[in-house]
Structures are given as structure tokens and as C-alpha cells.
């Protein structure tokens, strides 16, 4: 429309057309800044006019979230969201011209890379990985290092950012959460007789599978965005559990709390299922499953000897 009306436009902007502003992923904006764009505008239809109902509102929310992150890093003026209808030629010219002038004053984008990065995505997790990488890289280039946690207010947080919160009074350390997580967010390490469960904050998309599967309901998904945690590549530690050592082979094979829980379940019995409570002897968990098996097999050896 602006072209047809023969309006003057600055020469150094490029338009990338999408069917709806809702298609614009934060990853596109970050990748553009790295690839050589000095500024990015996301232009969508006015609220209420979206052909796809609410695509423009989603875009607005994403850009706002991204700007919050970039504000701390020092790049937030280079990204804007505007609502322009197809017939508003004048407004389009004004917006582009003003933005171009603003960017000229700011100068070239400091996070531009020399060589282009080839980004190929085939699953959600890769996209989150790239966004994470780009934000870390920008923070580094702009010498941004958070001194303490930088929490975003809950309303500003985009969908899908959060983390699992563990209740230390309920968790028995069975690891079902770690095994069910589809995004490899959770980490479980057994070192020196202690099991540590933690999570990689940036990967969690709050699907809630861990909270659902926990047999003790010890996990709650909290919606939260902490920029410092997001910039970290180390997993956050959630919970520490003592492990029991096998008296035969010396391996650390299970958390004490899980074994206690098993003992309690057996002792309690279950009226509905017709299980009468049974008190296990003290030494019943002295051996790991492998040693129990070998010792049970060892008892059979006598039959070989007897049959000679």
C-alpha cells in the first residue's frame, strides 16, 4: 500500500512476510540480531483484527517477554512490536522511518557474528537449546553478568517457562521423575553414597509429567523465570538423599528413604486388597538385588553337589 501510494521509504530495511505475526518465534528475532540485523520490528494486525483470532496477541506477549530479557542485557531498544493494518500506508512509513532513525543513532548491533550460523530445528528441544545459546552469547558479548537472581513477574512470563519444585519431606528419591521427563531436564547422580536430583532450568517446558508420575506427590510445577538461572549452564540442585550400601558388594544401590517407605508399606498392609501387614526383619535390605540373586542361586549349587 505504501509502495502504491508512492511514499518515501528508507532504503535499508527488509520485509519478511509471514501469514500471521503469531508465527514469529523469539528464536527468529534473536537469530536475526546475530545474523546482521541491527533492529527488528514485529508488525501485526490490530488487537481484535487477527485473522487467526489471537495470533497477534501471542506475538505481543512474546516480544514483551523477549524485550524484558534483552533489557537487562542492553539490547531491548532494537526490538519492537507494532500494530499496523494493511491499509495504513502512512503509519507504516512513519513507523519504519522512525525506527530506522532510532537504530542509526544506536549504531550497528554489537552482537553481530562474522559468519552466519546454520540453524536447523527438528524438535522443540533444539529450539529451546538455540534460544538458550543465543541469549547466553548476547549476554557475554554485552558483558552482562547478573549478580543475583532476576525474577520476572508471573504475568510477563511466556507460556512454558518454569521448573519442578521438590518437597524434601515427601521425596523418597526413587527417580521415576528423572526417568519420565521427556526433555531431559532432570538429572540424577549417585556419587559417594549420596543421590542428588536437580534440573536444567532452561529446558523445562512445564509439561508436568514429573509431577504427575511422582508416587509421593512431592513435585509441584512452579511458573517462574529467573534470568540468572536461565543464563546458567549448570543444573540447579533440588534434593540430596542418602544411599544404602550393600553389605556384600559395597555398591550404593537405593535411597534409605525409599527402602523405609517400602518397609512401611509392607508393615501397613492393605485392607482393600487383602494384604495383612508384615514386619520385615531388620536385615532384609542389607543386600542389593544383584547379591540377593547370587546368594539365592548359590543355594541351588548344593543340589549339584548332592546329585554327584
Amino acid at each position, binding site marked *: 500500500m505504501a509502495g502504491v501510494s508512492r511514499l518515501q521509504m528508507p532504503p535499508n530495511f527488509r520485509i519478511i512476510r509471514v501469514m500471521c505475526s503469531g508465527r514469529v518465534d523469539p528464536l527468529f528475532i534473536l537469530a536475526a540480531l546475530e545474523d546482521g540485523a541491527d533492529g527488528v520490528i514485529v508488525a501485526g494486525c490490530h488487537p481484535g483484527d487477527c485473522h487467526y483470532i489471537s495470533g497477534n496477541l501471542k506475538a505481543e506477549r512474546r516480544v514483551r517477554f523477549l524485550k524484558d530479557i534483552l533489557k537487562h542485557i542492553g539490547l531491548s531498544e532494537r526490538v519492537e512490536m507494532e500494530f499496523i493494518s494493511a491499509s495504513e500506508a502512512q503509519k507504516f512509513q512513519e513507523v519504519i522511518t522512525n525506527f530506522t532513525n532510532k537504530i542509526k543513532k544506536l549504531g550497528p548491533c554489537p552482537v553481530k557474528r562474522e559468519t552466519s550460523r546454520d540453524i536447523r530445528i527438528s524438535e522443540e528441544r533444539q529450539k529451546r537449546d538455540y534460544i538458550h545459546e543465543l541469549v547466553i552469547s548476547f549476554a557475554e558479548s554485552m558483558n552482562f553478568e547478573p549478580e543475583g537472581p532476576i525474577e520476572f513477574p508471573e504475568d510477563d512470563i511466556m507460556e512454558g517457562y518454569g521448573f519442578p519444585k521438590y518437597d524434601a519431606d515427601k521425596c523418597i528419591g*526413587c*527417580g*521415576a521423575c528423572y*526417568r*519420565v521427563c521427556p526433555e531431559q531436564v532432570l538429572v540424577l547422580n549417585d556419587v559417594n553414597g549420596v543421590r542428588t536430583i536437580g534440573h536444567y532450568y532452561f529446558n523445562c517446558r512445564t509439561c508436568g509429567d514429573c509431577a504427575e*508420575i511422582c*508416587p*509421593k506427590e512431592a513435585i509441584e510445577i512452579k511458573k517462574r523465570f529467573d534470568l540468572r538461572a536461565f543464563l546458567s549452564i549448570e543444573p540447579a540442585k533440588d534434593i540430596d538423599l542418602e544411599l544404602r550400601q550393600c553389605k556384600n558388594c559395597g555398591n550404593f*544401590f*537405593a535411597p534409605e528413604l*525409599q*527402602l523405609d*517407605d*517400602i518397609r512401611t*508399606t*509392607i508393615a501397613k498392609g*492393605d485392607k482393600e*486388597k487383602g*494384604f495383612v501387614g508384615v514386619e520385615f526383619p531388620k536385615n*532384609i*535390605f542389607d543386600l*542389593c*538385588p*544383584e*547379591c*540377593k*540373586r*547370587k546368594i*539365592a*542361586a*548359590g543355594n*541351588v*549349587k548344593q*543340589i*549339584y553337589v548332592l*546329585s554327584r
Partner: protein
Amino acid sequence: MTKKVYLVPNRCLGCEECIEACAKEHEWAARNYVEWIDMVYPVQMHCSHCVDAPCARVCPVDAIKTTEEDAIVIDEAVCIGCGNCALVCPFGIPRFSGSTKKVVKCDLCIDRQREGKEPACVENCPTHALVFIDIEEYETPKRERAARRILEAGTYLREILMPQEG
């Protein structure tokens, strides 16, 4: 009259065909074991399908049930992989499957049983060291043999050692 798989130890060669047969039947993850005692005695081990199974008691999601064949079976879809059953089993039989991260154990091949076949390990054992029978069937011949030996010992005592006592 419930049939289970039993091992006749002195027939076992240690060929481990039973492991391969079980693996083939269960998506290449065998649920049985062969433990070598003192490096020379092979002992095949599998789930005992206990009548009052501790594994069924401690499963937090009730994934372990008794079937009509009296087999104790873990329902893979329900299992959450907590490992309680693996820890409580007195014989250390359930194990974590590497691929699914859930727990698996011998299911007495109930799928095969329902087709009228014997469990895969039993069918493939070349020396019939694994038998699929009721415990009574397994014990009765042993009892008879023992009874026969007692009788012989009694006869020996009566006629040769102490013939005077009519």
C-alpha cells in the same frame, strides 16, 4: 493345579539358550538370568511368581497383578519405573529395562500360554532342564524315590543286619 517353570539343576549345561529365547520373545530384553556359582555351576533364575508377592504389595500404582494363570505380571503401561519392586524382591529378579526405563520381569509367557504353548525358555531348553509343571508333579516322583529308599533301608535292616528279629 497351576503350572510354573522349575529348574532341574543337574540337567543344565549352561548354554543360556533360555536367555536368548526369552529375549526373542520380549523385544530383545531378557527377563531371566543365569548365575554362575563358583564359575562352574550354572543356575537359571526367573520370577518365582510368589503366591503373596511382595512386589505386588509395594507397587505405588498397582501395576503388578495376578493373572488367572497365577502368574504375577507387571503392566508396562501403568509402571512408572520407581524400582520399589526391584528393591523388595527377595530374589532380586525385577530389573530396569534400558530402553523403556521401566521395570520388567518374567511374565510366565502368558501370551504364549493363552495360545496353548509353553514359556519360551522351557520350549528352547535342549536338555529339558527347565520344566513347566505343577509343583505337585515335580515333587511327587522325588517323594516316591525317597520313600523307596527308606523302604530298601528298612528291608536291609530287617533281613541282613538283624535277621533274628522276625
